[in-house]
């Protein structure tokens, strides 16, 4: 346990879920892409093996005492297993350079067997990382897996720009593609759930910055509802995140049946509270770039206070988190400051006087 805490993250989560008192607010800086920094690894080294991936999480936890360990099947995993090609940069996040599917009418040729654990080396690596974390740390801190939702999985196979065109011009094949992703994600999610990981479903390509609400309701929500149901059938828990501006779809996102909702900094936490707090706990939304990456520890402290002012009275609970994954060579002191502020201002019982 972190020296400044009185409960382990697992005890804290248990108290949160059952409405019991805890030592402080749950705090989840999303230390995924950049986690290697805590072990002195580059992004690339952290991505290289399952044990590196796990070690980076353990070292983050040792330093920060953050409430969730995160392994990364990632946003591109489905596409890469099917033949999309990624960059492999030293100190940055990979990006897709070639897509597995050039022509949407060829969607029926996609080979689902490539996505199975037995056949996908990267998948095996992330499962190994998950197993290490659950085995070594599971008595103290929960593990989640950051993994794509259906629309983003589709965008890892077929170029986003053409995916958008297909929402008007080739709905039939687009639905086939998303359905294909959804059915395979179910199988993939279950492998992680079986090993005790919580699903952190991220669907950034379904962002309100890219899709309008009608497209979301037609091409994303029905699949997500189906997927969440399967997660629950498998005994799993899911936190649902979409990057960017999701102001107009916060309500729809909750309809997915997700257990928690995570919002990016482009959404006003007050708006999310009004729309969703009566149904699910809300995570958010310290700006991962302007505050965590470019800001100072003082900026972080101020931002945490602002989030608490807005979020502390969410009916189903509030979890302090960054609006999105942390990436790049950001100053680790900012994550220290994030956790310190969570301990100071989020001390239980939450009292608005403490974070005025």
């Amino acid at each position, binding site marked *: 346990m972190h020296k400044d805490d009185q409960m382990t993250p697992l005890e804290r989560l248990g108290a949160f879920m059952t409405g019991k008192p805890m030592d402080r607010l749950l705090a989840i800086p999303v230390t995924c*892409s950049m986690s290697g920094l805590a072990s002195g690894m580059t*992004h690339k080294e952290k991505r290289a093996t399952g044990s590196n991936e796990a070690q980076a999480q353990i070292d983050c936890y040792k330093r920060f005492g953050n409430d969730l360990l995160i392994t990364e099947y990632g946003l591109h995993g489905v596409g890469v297993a099917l033949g999309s090609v990624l*960059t492999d940069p030293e100190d940055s996040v990979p*990006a897709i*350079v070639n897509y597995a599917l050039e022509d949407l009418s060829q969607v029926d040729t996609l080979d689902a067997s490539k996505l199975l654990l037995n056949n996908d080396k990267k998948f095996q690596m992330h499962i190994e990382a998950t197993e290490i974390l659950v085995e070594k740390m599971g008595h103290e801190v929960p593990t989640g897996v950051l993994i794509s939702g259906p629309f983003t999985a589709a965008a890892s196979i077929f170029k986003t720009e053409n995916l958008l065109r297909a929402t008007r011009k080739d709905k039939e094949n687009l639905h086939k593609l998303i359905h294909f992703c959804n059915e395979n994600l179910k199988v993939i999610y279950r492998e992680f759930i079986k090993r005790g990981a919580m699903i952190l479903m991220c669907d950034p390509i379904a962002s309100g910055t890219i899709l309008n609400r009608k497209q979301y309701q037609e091409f994303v929500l029905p699949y997500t509802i189906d997927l969440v149901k399967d997660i629950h059938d498998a005994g799993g828990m899911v936190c649902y995140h979409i990057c960017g501006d999701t102001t107009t779809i916060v309500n729809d996102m909750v309809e997915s049946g997700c257990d928690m909702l995570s919002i990016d900094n482009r959404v006003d936490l007050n708006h999310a509270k009004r729309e969703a707090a009566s149904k699910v706990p809300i995570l958010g939304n310290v700006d991962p*770039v302007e505050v965590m990456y*470019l800001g100072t520890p003082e900026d972080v402290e101020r931002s945490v206070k602002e989030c608490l002012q807005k979020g502390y009275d969410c009916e189903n609970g509030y979890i302090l988190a960054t609006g999105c994954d942390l990436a790049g060579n950001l100053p680790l002191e900012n994550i220290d400051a994030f956790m310190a502020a969570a301990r100071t201002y989020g001390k239980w019982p939450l009292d608005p006087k403490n974070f005025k």
Partner: protein
Amino acid sequence: MTQAKDELLKKLSDGVLEMEEDIVIESANAYLEAGYPVLDGVLHGLVDGMNRASVLFDEEEYFVTDVLLCSDAMYEGLNILRPHLPAEEVEKEKPKGVIGVVEGDTHDIGKNLVKIMLETAGFEMHDLGRDVPLQSFVNKAKEVNADLVCLSTLMTTTMGGMETVINLLKDEGIRENMKVIVGGGPISQKFADMIGADGYSVNAVEAVKLSKSLLSLA
């Protein structure tokens, strides 16, 4: 029967706005056959439609998909009309822009929208594509004598490349000859100021307004 010029211009404009490629192609061919001035067809037909689309985008009536499909229709029309533009029009000096997604990033929808909007607004755009080596921006800017350099990224980890481009432009001694604007998911006015860019805009329509104001164009 030959259709009236105004009628065809309206069809071109509406065809772009309503994302009807077939109507645009048919109307562009009819417009050519009737022998009307090609430049009017481009500006008062196709570009007019795209401008109307950008107003709807600004009003959040149209989204990314709509603008993409409108531009697809516009480019179909341009492919037909452009080869017939009078030589003096083709050679006419336009403000020149270099645009690309900085090295390490391949997300290019935002960049493409900005390029479309700037082209529509009368810029001659040189698109370097995505995952562009930083020096390439400088080389291209020098080669075409650019007035504007537009840098885009969606990824936090590649933001730093924008500052490098600005420094490379300084090293070449050409930074003051052009305006540099930045945009993309993680970018903000604060970041633009930090790295010494001339401006930041939140979306493609704003990027046009910003570019015009920076270059003092009407």
